[in-house]
């Protein structure tokens, strides 16, 4: 008991030190962002196609706001394709400047705040996940008290990865609205992990409203609320229960996984409906004179699904649809958008249903590869969610190769763009090859993480089997 108390005391100290370090690093990242925002004027990050897509560009939002102020529909002219609520929130900020400085500084401030919020929420999510991991391992009998320190604080790591990821910093400073989209996704995950159902529903609705693809998070969120947090497969717990064989010890071998809680899930569905109706009413209010909800759906979701804008980005669709014949365009659109649904969502959900957070990560990673208009802001999100699973994914193979690939392709991308557009010595194939390589490495990354997770489960199974033998 004394040992346990000493361990607890040490752990508390360590936790305090950890949180102290975390706050130092996060404030340092904030200062770093402020430096980049306030000082240089000529970086012109907002014109980079990797950072600002037709959906996330702040310049387009400013244009949409100006159009609205001029009593025209904000969607006229195919400039702005985002949510009207975002327009009311961020629009006024793009107009008011600070003492003659460039108008978008206030907006950058909003993005820094949302980044910090996302980091804090990620940290809390990670802490919950870490607790569950530790508890489960203890219940499986694989963890003794002294080995607790082998478990990394995945919350802190994920939050710091999010804050210091160059992709996040670039998308925060580069005037794109992806920090807000990332915040919405992280809010929904946080709500589901801490079992705050209205918050999870709110996050899901806002994320889907801002960009269509987080709608796939419905599945992991329902699993999170129904089954509970990530845990090893239930079979392992049955094995240990067999091993113990004493009725009194049944409670200890219980997994943190719950039997599917229909009540919570129905509660979640109710809140999803409430928030979606609220958001739709608000949108129809603000777009009353300009065509209403139909216009909004056509211009936001329709724009996303039809891939109307074929300007280059780090995705793989623009080049293809620039060449596709008109009569086969619809066919290819359907194939590409449905590919994700059919081939990825359901099989993963079935295979990894005991790890809903991980499913969320994989869905987000795939949606950032197969999105209509991807940007590095999406990569920032899933890379930090990956860091939530450092404990399980320690044995990821080829991680160095993938890491180098990421860095290489991200650095080559502006070079190829310059060669193509500014110097004219390259052509679109240079840039598209880079995009294809980047997509390839993203696929590899996701594939390696999923196989590492499955291997981890296998290793746990082996370890519990050994323990049963012993």
């Amino acid at each position, binding site marked *: 008991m004394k040992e346990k108390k000493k361990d607890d005391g040490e752990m508390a100290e360590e936790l305090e030190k950890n949180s102290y370090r975390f706050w130092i690093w996060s404030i340092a990242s904030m200062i770093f962002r402020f430096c980049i925002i306030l000082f240089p004027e000529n970086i012109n990050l907002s014109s980079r196609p990797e950072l600002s897509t037709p959906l996330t560009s702040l310049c387009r939002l400013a244009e949409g706001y100006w159009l609205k102020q001029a009593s025209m529909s904000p969607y006229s002219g195919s400039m702005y394709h985002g949510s*009207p*609520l975002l327009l*009311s*929130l961020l629009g006024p900020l793009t107009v008011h400047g600070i003492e003659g400085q460039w108008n978008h500084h206030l907006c950058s401030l909003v993005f820094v705040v949302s980044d910090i919020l996302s980091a804090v929420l990620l940290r809390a999510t990670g802490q919950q996940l870490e607790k569950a991991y530790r508890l489960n391992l203890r219940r499986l009998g694989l963890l003794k008290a002294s080995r607790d320190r082998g478990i990394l604080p995945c919350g802190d790591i994920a939050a710091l990865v999010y804050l210091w990821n160059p992709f996040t910093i670039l998308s925060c400073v580069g005037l794109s609205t992806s920090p807000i989209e990332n915040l919405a996704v992280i809010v929904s995950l946080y*709500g589901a992990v*801490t*079992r*705050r*159902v*209205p*918050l999870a529903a*709110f996050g899901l609705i806002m994320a889907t409203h801002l960009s269509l693809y987080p709608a796939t998070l419905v599945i992991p969120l329902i699993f999170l609320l129904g089954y509970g947090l990530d845990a090893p497969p239930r079979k392992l717990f049955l094995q240990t229960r067999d091993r113990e064989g004493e009725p009194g010890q049944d409670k200890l071998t219980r997994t943190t996984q719950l039997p599917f809680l229909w009540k919570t899930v129905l509660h979640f569905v109710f809140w999803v409906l409430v*928030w979606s109706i*609220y958001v739709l009413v*608000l949108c129809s*209010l*603000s777009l*009353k004179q300009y065509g209403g909800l139909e216009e909004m759906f056509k211009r936001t979701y329709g724009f996303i699904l039809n891939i109307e804008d074929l300007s280059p980005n780090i995705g793989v669709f623009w080049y293809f649809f620039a060449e596709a014949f008109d009569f086969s365009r619809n066919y290819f659109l359907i194939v590409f958008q449905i590919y994700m649904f059919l081939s990825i969502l359901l099989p993963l959900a079935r295979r990894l249903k005991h790890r809903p957070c991980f499913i969320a990560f994989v869905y987000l990673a795939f949606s950032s590869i197969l999105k209509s208009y991807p940007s590095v802001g999406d990569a920032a999100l899933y890379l930090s969610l990956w860091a939530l699973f450092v404990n399980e994914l320690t044995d990821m193979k080829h991680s160095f190769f993938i890491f180098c690939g990421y860095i290489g392709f991200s650095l080559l991308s502006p070079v190829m763009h310059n060669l193509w557009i500014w110097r004219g010595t390259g052509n679109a194939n240079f840039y598209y090859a880079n995009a294809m390589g980047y997509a390839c490495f993203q696929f590899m990354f996701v594939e390696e993480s999923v196989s590492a997770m499955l291997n981890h489960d296998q290793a746990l199974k082996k370890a519990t089997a050994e323990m049963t033998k012993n």
Partner: protein
Amino acid sequence: MKILILVMLLCSSFAFSSGDTTIHTNNWAVLVCTSRFWFNYRHMANTLSLYRTVKRLGIPDERIILMLADDMACNARNEYPAQVFNNENHKLNLYGDNVEVDYRGYEVTVENFLRVLTGRHENAVPRSKRLLSDEGSHILLYMTGHGGDEFLKFQDAEELQSHDLADAVKQMKEKRRFKELMIMVDTCQAATLFNQLQSPGVLAIGSSLKGENSYSHHLDSDIGVSVVDRFTYYTLAFFERLNIYDNASLNSLFRSYDPRQLMSTAYYRTDLYQRHLVEVPVTNFFGSVMETIHTDSAYEAFSSRISDSKINSDMPFNQPSEQDLKEELQNANIPSDKLKTEKEKCPYTQMRTDFNEKLEKLENVDTVVNLSIAVMVVVVIVSSSLLR
């Protein structure tokens, strides 16, 4: 059977009145010089003089189609390079800084001319080479060169016949490419060129009758060739006295041609033209003087004010239609009231209509939306802290 007759009457009345119901909105000029070679200097000078006049009186370059062989100004035999004169006193250089030739050299062919008139171009033909007139246009078509009985010689290689021209004009009328068309021809036996015309709204004048020649005015001994034709010379003499604000009528222009001075009879044909020549100002064709109505507001006032001003002068039968419109509006108001009283019975729809009315009265939708977003965030935080 009766219905058929009614329909036919309607159609004919439409066809009859179609020329009257459109408003004169713009002026176009198609100036064609059909000769090339140095000894036909005077034809190019004719066309360029008319180009200058038409531009001076207000038609912009974008509404002038100028077809010239354009081989005079830079001809090796031209003692005054890059200069074209229409008078031996060399006072006026017609080939100044801003001559925009749309069809030059070998592009001046019968085919291109007919394409310009009918508007049937290939896709690649630029806008500057197209006659983009509409049903409110007045077009001036001036042709000069060598002609004969029912034909006009184009560039020494082909000819345009009078029935070709009549066919093209008929197509133009069908496609409503002009409101009124004035054809002015300065060639030998010019009046025969518009013998075959039948389309209404066309006024034509030629410099000579069948069997007569049109003569040049004088020879410039410096340049070595005749520099202008008589008909065009006297036309220009009439126009040089005018400026853009003058109200001279076509009648005065036509009366100014003296057969003894022209050494031919300038014959004009008005049987296809409904209006009296005394009432038509020359700037209707030779210039571009438009009636401008100044409004301060954006676009709504346009149609009503035009109809108000035009009702009295040109279109007397539009007045009852406006009154009809007013009656229709009044009638339209009545059924909506009836509908309203019916809807009041159902409380749900009444609530909705009240809500919609309130929304329409709300001027500041933006603040409402912002407030609602703030409310939403507060509710989220409150509910998530309460419900775990």
